[in-house]
């Protein structure tokens, strides 16, 4: 039998059900793998004692004949989800030793279904970044390396810890969040599956806010089916989040393996951007061919406002962030710098507590919302956002889903894009449109580039049509036969 940390979530749940191993054994194997993988810096906080306690409680529930849908499965939690009694940092110094006295709705639902928490996963500070390099706890190092090259690579961001942990066998699946691509780009960089569901599908309650009209939680997993199992547990209406959708949660796993024959798949011509590596273009063509072979009809569509999505995002997201992050004032929780006056205390606490990228975005947000600029920037961006959403609505009149690359390149080296914020922002060029429109988007691993690094394809669906994405993702996964794992060097 394969090592316990090589199993898919599905296989692990079957093994637990068949009593081939206990949750305690499974959890212990993951704790050992995490200890051995500290050079990756994927976990900000390991919680082995809590994990073993939860695993033993899970084994007892199973023995009593009352297993949940995730019974006994050890998971990693992005450190943006508040966890009761367990320090939560958002990858920032400003939260200090903040230890929530409440549990996020999404994680509450995972524990309700029997999952076990291994620890809190590293991320870009406040989820602002595409390489995990803005974390106050240092960057995550990808378990993947270029062939014959030991240069440390980024696992992507902001959910870099989640993606690296799933790829390296440090958990069976992980929670993540996606404001502009933070689930899908790291999934593409690490050969894992990541889905950002429809805005409102997962409750945002207890998730540290970045840009509230864009933030969505979702899973990163090893297979499409695993992602479906996790998303089913994470989803559902929550009265504590006023944007949570009061709709039924479909049985997502049952969509994996369904025929996609007759589905119309749109290929947006504006996603063929200048300077895109030929390998990405080739992979995209391959994905089109796979779906055509599976019986889909391929239709070229136009999303004319695509190129304006990133600039609009870099007004909307910083504006919302500057407002959301105003709460970090050092008064009720988090870091407080000592100063003589109240204003100095605010200014010094925030100067010491926030990293450079977070400060940049707060300043941009404050600027575009300030008197005299509101209409020229913020209001204009909201109107462009409507144009982008309308492009999708029109496309979905002709097609059932869209197929695009997930990211414009494979993983890059740590430090490679660090000096140019705009170059870093361009990582999200194919993913950010989906957040602006509130649509579901999924990245599926589809192949390797010439240097041996994973590449992902993105599927975009109509609102609440995650089910079809799981069917299409399953078809791509089957055709691609992608089962590669990074060669262990750590």
């Amino acid at each position, binding site marked *: 039998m394969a090592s316990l940390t090589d199993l898919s979530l599905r296989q692990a749940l079957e093994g637990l059900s068949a009593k081939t191993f206990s949750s305690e054994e499974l959890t212990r194997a993951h704790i050992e793998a995490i200890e051995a993988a500290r050079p990756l810096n994927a976990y900000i906080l390991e919680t082995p004692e809590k994990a073993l306690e939860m695993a033993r409680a899970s084994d007892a529930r199973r023995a009593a004949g009352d297993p949940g849908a995730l019974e006994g499965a050890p998971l990693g939690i992005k450190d943006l989800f508040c966890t009761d009694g367990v320090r939560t940092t958002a990858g920032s110094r400003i939260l200090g030793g903040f230890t929530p006295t409440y549990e996020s709705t999404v994680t509450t639902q995972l524990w309700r279904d029997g999952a076990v928490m291994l620890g809190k996963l590293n991320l870009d500070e406040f989820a602002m970044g595409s390489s995990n390099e803005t974390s106050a706890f240092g960057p995550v190092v990808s378990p993947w390396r270029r062939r014959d090259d030991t240069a440390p690579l980024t696992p992507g961001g902001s959910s870099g810890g989640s993606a690296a942990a799933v790829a390296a066998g440090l958990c069976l699946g992980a929670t993540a969040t996606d404001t502009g691509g933070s689930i899908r780009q790291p999934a593409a960089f690490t050969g894992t599956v990541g889905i950002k569901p429809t*805005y409102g599908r997962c409750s945002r309650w207890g998730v540290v806010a970045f840009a509230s009209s864009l933030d969505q939680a979702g899973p990163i997993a090893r297979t499409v089916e695993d992602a479906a199992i996790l998303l089913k547990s994470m989803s559902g209406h929550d009265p504590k989040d006023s944007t949570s959708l009061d709709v039924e949660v479909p049985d997502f796993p049952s969509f994996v393996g369904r025929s996609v024959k007759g589905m119309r798949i749109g290929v947006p011509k504006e996603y063929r951007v200048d300077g895109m590596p030929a390998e990405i273009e080739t992979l995209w063509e391959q994905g089109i061919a796979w779906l055509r072979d599976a019986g889909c009809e391929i239709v070229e569509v136009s999303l004319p406002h695509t190129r*304006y999505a990133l*600039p609009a995002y*870099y007004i909307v997201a910083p504006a919302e962030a500057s407002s959301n992050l105003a709460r970090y004032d050092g008064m009720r929780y988090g870091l407080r710098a000592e100063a003589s006056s109240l*204003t100095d205390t605010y200014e010094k606490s925030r100067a010491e507590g926030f990293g450079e990228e977070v400060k940049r975005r707060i300043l941009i947000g404050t600027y575009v919302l300030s008197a005299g600029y509101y209409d020229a920037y913020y209001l204009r961006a909201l*109107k*462009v956002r409507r*144009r982008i959403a309308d492009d999708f609505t029109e496309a979905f009149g002709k097609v059932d889903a869209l197929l695009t690359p997930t990211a414009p390149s494979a993983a890059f080296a740590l430090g490679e894009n660090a000096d140019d914020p705009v170059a870093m922002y361009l990582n999200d060029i194919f993913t950010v449109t989906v957040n602006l429109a509130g649509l579901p988007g999924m990245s599926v691993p589809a192949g390797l580039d010439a240097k041996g690094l994973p590449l992902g394809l993105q599927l975009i669906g109509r609102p609440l049509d995650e089910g079809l994405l799981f069917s299409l993702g399953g078809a791509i996964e089957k055709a691609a036969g992608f089962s590669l794992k990074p060669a262990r060097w750590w």
Partner: protein
Amino acid sequence: MAIDAATVRKVARLARIAEPEARIEPLARELSGIMDWIEQLAEVNIEGVEPMTSAVSQPAPLREDVVTEGGDPERVLANAPRRAGDFFVVPKVVE
């Protein structure tokens, strides 16, 4: 350059972030670079377009105006940088 040093100082003050003098010029360059790139939004025809303020098309839900939680000062104060009894201690606000 869209954003000069004086604007950086003003915005940093509004955002309550003490930026050291040595960071003002670099920030002016970085923020200007970002804002110059954002300027391309001026090309988009937004005539008659309603601003999109939410990705959810349903109206905000209402609930009864009643207390749902509370009366637990220990949980509220658990992470206070400084406390005295059931109060947060903060720097002097009123002169």
